[in-house]
């Protein structure tokens, strides 16, 4: 019994940050129809910014809780600014082109950001471990868990709920949903789609960066952080269904649990697990688990 609880807990911890990353990816895809390869770079950007903020706070002798707050605030500010700037300054020029072209534009952004983060932060690993000790340790099922890891689970649930609430229960959210479902119709109803694009993209960047910031205290920041995150979050979004909030949640939990189960039960299979699930979902439910009915053009 304890064994299975361990798997579930490990899986949920894994799923918590993955969910936030995937949420950003799925939002950007839903609204802008861009599969954003640079999404992982924004994750890395968030992690680096968080590390800088935490280090600056710690250098002034302030407690780690201040560092935690400072890290979330600075990431929110910088990431939204970067998101708006990129959307208005760059992506805007490519709207109306093929999805593949847009995908390649984000790939170019990925390459550029890779070197830009290196120019700013260098190649030496950077830490921000102070907040990791913030919530102490907990004993559970005969194992020690770090409180910070466990706190991530409710935080990501809150983020998910906030996005869901924002989309379904506010006017702006309804407009965004309208653009997701039928852009042409929204335009004719007087929706300023360009503004929706900018907001959605900035939010996507923000979510990726936020996930980066939340994981920053437990990893070491260094070049190459981004490319792995992209492929994992792609898998989650494809499993859950592109453009669906619920799908991202279920996809993240599935991927987290699959990873945890394979590490505990058959470590050899870990590398395949996620791609196998992804291929299986695509085979049987090509639109993802949370499929939205779309009319077929004849």
């Amino acid at each position, binding site marked *: 019994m304890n064994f299975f609880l*361990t*798997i579930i*807990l*490990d*899986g949920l*911890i*894994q799923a918590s940050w993955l969910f936030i990353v995937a949420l950003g990816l799925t939002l950007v895809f839903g609204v802008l129809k861009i599969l954003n390869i640079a999404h992982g770079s924004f994750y890395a950007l968030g992690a680096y910014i968080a590390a800088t903020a935490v280090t600056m706070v710690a250098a002034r002798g302030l407690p780690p809780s201040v560092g935690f707050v400072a890290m979330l605030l600075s990431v929110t500010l910088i990431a939204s600014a970067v998101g708006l700037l990129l959307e208005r300054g760059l992506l805007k020029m490519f709207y109306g082109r093929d999805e593949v072209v847009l995908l390649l534009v984000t790939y170019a952004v990925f390459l550029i950001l*890779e*070197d830009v983060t*290196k120019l700013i932060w260098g*190649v*030496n*690993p950077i*830490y921000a*471990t102070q907040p*990791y*000790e913030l919530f102490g*340790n907990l004993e559970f099922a*005969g*194992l*020690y*868990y*770090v409180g910070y*890891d466990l706190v991530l689970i409710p935080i990501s649930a809150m983020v998910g709920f906030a996005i869901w609430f924002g989309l379904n229960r506010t006017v702006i959210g309804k407009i965004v949903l309208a653009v997701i479902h039928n852009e042409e119709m929204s335009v004719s109803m007087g929706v300023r789609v360009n503004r929706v694009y900018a907001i959605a993209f900035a939010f996507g960047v923000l979510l990726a960066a936020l996930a980066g910031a939340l*994981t920053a205290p*437990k*990893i*070491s920041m*260094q*070049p*190459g*952080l981004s490319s*792995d995150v992209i492929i994992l979050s792609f898998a989650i979004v494809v499993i859950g269904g592109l453009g669906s909030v619920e799908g991202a949640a279920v996809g993240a939990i599935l991927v987290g649990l699959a*990873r*945890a189960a394979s*590490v*505990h039960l058959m*470590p*050899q299979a*870990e*590398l395949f697990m996620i791609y196998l699930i992804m291929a299986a979902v695509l085979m049987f439910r090509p639109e993802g688990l949370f499929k939205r009915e779309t009319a077929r053009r004849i």
Partner: protein
Amino acid sequence: MDRLWRTNRAVLFASVAATSLGLAVPASAQETFKLGIVTFLSGPAADSFGVPARNGAQFVIDQLNKGSVPSPYEKVGFGGMKIEPVIIDENGGATKQVQELRNLYQRDNVDVVLGYISSGDCLAVAPIAEELKKMLVLMDCGTPRIFEEAKYNYVFRTAAHATMDNVGLVRYMKAKNIKMESLSAINQDYAWGQDSRADFVAAAQQLYPNVKVQTDLLPKYGAGQYGTEISALVGAGSDVVYSSLWGGDLQAFILQSVPRGLSKRSQLVFSAADHVLPPLGDKMPDGTILGARGAYGLMSQKSPLNDWLFKGYEAANGVYPVQAAYRSTQSILGLKAAVEKAMSKNGGKKPSTDEMVAAMTGLEWPSPGGLIQMKLADGHQAIQPIAFSRTKYNPDLKRVDLVDIEYFAAECVNPPPGVKSIDWIKGGMQGAKCN
């Protein structure tokens, strides 16, 4: 079509002309020695290995060009010729490296290429250098396969391969009476991790015949988050947890596992972990057993050469040199010894590739990490001494000190010529000469 093809050609010729002009500027080719250096400047291996290796190479080349290296390397540059380095990034995969190696030899006309950290890159570039009949010095990569599966004339490796890291580690544990009835392992799921794991387990089964392998994890290279793996390792509660993780992965593993009590439940042993000590500081648990792939850094033995590198590198870079810096240093010094040996035979001319190859084969030279001997693979593969130790945080200096250091002679931890590494270990490590 025609127009673009022409402009394209024009670009080609312009660039070719530019490179050949660039070469023509120094009046006589005798005065400089063009050395291609390939090391990771980006990607996950940059901070741990690539950049320290580059910094080490740059430091040594500056010092050699100034003629301020201690004996026996006082001569300026290589036998009086100034060294002109061409540094390129190793990141981007084997396909790219094969192409870049050709470019270095054929377009940039470098005399020798020195470098490579990734085993996959080493395996890929070695046959190309052989075909082009150009000298290639591999400085760091670990896999024994390079010379065990093929024979090369123009290719050398100036550092011992990964077998000694694991054989030496088990010998150290035995010497220090570490209890190991059960063993768990966590290694990256690619060749370095798989091979290290195989070597360690095989060597452990020789010296600890009753050892039981429990949890045996192979997470993805670059995974970065090990929560689940740590649960499994702590759950298993083995006497020893072995790992060949390195760089960011190793740092993340330590940061995440220490708060969860792994280092209290099991003895941690790391085969190549010295390079994470400067960044980790007091986050590294005391008593961890680790190796540095040689007698390097804080485990190096006192000598004028070592003092020169350690102090000079620290002054130039603000951090003491770790394994990769030592490895690039020892390969440049070895190349210098070979070039100068060849020049003493041909009357002081700039030596040809074949003259350098002949001089390098079977060469021995002193380095900051001890004596390097090209003993294996008909004089093309080096063996060297190695050291292991335990960590102890020093709050006064704010750095991790290494205590209980033990040295092993090169011939104690490396296979003799003509025997495959894994066969040698499984056959009981016959012919090892330990003091």
